[in-house]
């Protein structure tokens, strides 16, 4: 054996140069491109949201078309916290985490059984129910007008949210980085390995003593909490929460990001979110009306050609996958 088993196992958990570079670039971006600070925070938030879907899709194999349910719940929680109680951002974020994780724990009961198709329907339905609730409870949520006039207090009592969005960008980046580091640990732990076992073969996972249902419920709860934080960040940095936070296309776009970036390695969500948001920003600047056409074309090509060959056309058209 060239390496001992322990060294081999631990090598997989090491921080890679690419990861460090990615985060350095991300943290440099608001300074280097001050006019795009808002885009940076939007990308960071979307990336965090995509990573949360990867936790259930990529690590446990649970499909969802309603992940926006938790995003929206987190957003409204954070916005209401600021509006009705205290405008402290971190308090609002903690509350968003708690409420959406709780909702996730309850909803996890609906994804334990059934096939992928039933899960798609159940998760979609859950998001629609919440959308309608936010619509009807207009006394609290502002209904179809959205929750406006959310004024956030300064971060840590010192850094006020400025108009060009630099504080917001660093706030979103820091929260995203912190959660990524935590989730990275989680997926490389024995617990994370049992999740992959559940994804690869549920029958065998059970046959080696993994409590499959408990694991699915756990990761669904965690993923919901992370999605809630992403939603909370969006509401806090934009000062606004509206019904489209729960909308179907938000959940569907998220799936597309994971299709672009790949599932089951956390950074697929990040890569997908960055690519998706940059393309959206870039194409819609060129052709505001038809950007979805180009987006669609890109996705069709991606699926037909495969991610490898589209992104690295120089590595052999001749070599076929086994």
């Amino acid at each position, binding site marked *: 054996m060239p390496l001992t088993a322990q060294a081999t196992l631990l090598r997989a958990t090491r921080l890679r140069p690419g990861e460090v570079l990615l985060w350095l670039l991300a943290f440099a971006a608001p300074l280097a491109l001050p006019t795009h600070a808002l885009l940076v925070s939007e990308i960071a938030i979307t990336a965090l949201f995509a990573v949360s879907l990867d936790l259930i899709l990529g690590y446990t194999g649970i499909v969802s078309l309603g992940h926006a349910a938790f995003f929206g719940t987190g957003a409204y929680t954070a916005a209401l916290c600021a509006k009705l109680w205290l405008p402290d951002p971190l308090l609002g974020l903690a509350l968003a985490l708690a409420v959406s994780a709780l909702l996730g724990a309850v909803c996890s009961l609906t994804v334990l059984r059934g096939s992928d198709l039933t899960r798609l329907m159940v998760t979609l339905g859950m998001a629609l129910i919440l959308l309608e609730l936010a619509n009807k409870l207009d006394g609290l949520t502002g209904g179809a007008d959205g929750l406006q006039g959310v004024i956030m207090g300064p971060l840590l009592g010192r850094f006020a949210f400025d108009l060009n969005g630099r504080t917001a960008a660093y706030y979103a980046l820091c929260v995203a980085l912190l959660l990524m580091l935590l989730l990275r640990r989680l997926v490389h732990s*024995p617990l994370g390995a*049992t999740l992959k076992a559940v994804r690869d073969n549920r029958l065998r996972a059970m046959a080696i*003593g993994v409590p499959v249902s408990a694991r699915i419920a756990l990761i669904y709860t965690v993923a919901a909490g992370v999605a809630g934080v992403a939603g909370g960040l969006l509401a806090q940095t934009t000062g606004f929460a509206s019904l489209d936070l729960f909308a179907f296309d938000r959940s569907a776009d998220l799936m597309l990001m994971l299709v672009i970036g790949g599932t089951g390695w956390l950074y697929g969500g990040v890569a997908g979110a960055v690519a998706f948001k940059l393309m959206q920003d870039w194409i819609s600047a060129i052709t505001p009306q038809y950007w979805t056409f180009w987006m669609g074309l890109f996705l069709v090509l991606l699926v037909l050609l495969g991610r490898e060959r589209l992104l690295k056309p120089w590595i052999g058209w001749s070599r076929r996958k086994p």
Partner: protein
Amino acid sequence: MNAVLQAQGLVMRFGGITATHNVTLNLAPGARHALIGPNGAGKTTLINLLTGVLQPSAGRIVLEGRDITRLAPHQRVQRGLVRTFQINQLFDSLTPLQTLALAVSRQRGLGARAWQALGRDRGVAARCEQLLAQFHLDEVMNQPTHVLAYGKRRLLEIALALACEPRVLLLDEPVAGVPAGEREELLQTVADLPAEVSVLLIEHDMDLVFRFAQRMTVLVNGAVLTEGTPEQIAQDPQVKAVYLGQGDAGASHG
């Protein structure tokens, strides 16, 4: 009664069909016990009852003096009742090393640990190395399972069960479908299983059964036809009539 695993009067009905008919089976400590029977004899149903995939209509299952009839499959595994599968059930995207590390971690009560890296525990890594060597998987320990040769996957199938430190191991046709060249390696590892583990072997391959088993139970139409030593079974005219006479060794069981 000092049996490790006891099945007492197990009955399984699916609607009007009785698939398992009052089956009683005792597995002695360290047993090498074979369960044979023609297609449709109810062997698979019996395994599913023992491992908890199915709940019996009547009867009890006792593991080391404890009634486990109502326990979920994963709880039975945690108490030492582990099975392998006739058709490989592995974690395709993981490597053999990761597969074993996860099972060993789970077995040592580290399966819910979210902080430590997989393999940080020195004992887990050491046990993995041991298993990899024992099952001739050390050469391929870093290849994803789905690219491994069939014989290697078959070995991993058993290694994974053994990583759960079973008290009782149910081997479901361990050599099914293994090409001749890889067969001997597999037969040898089955023969070399730790003596303290009680093994119930479900098998069609008579070579393996007679080479391995000290006791045999013959299942026909969901009921126990007879039980005895391999010599007794080989001489039994009833068995010859219903089972050996058909000469379908190597076929899959139903």
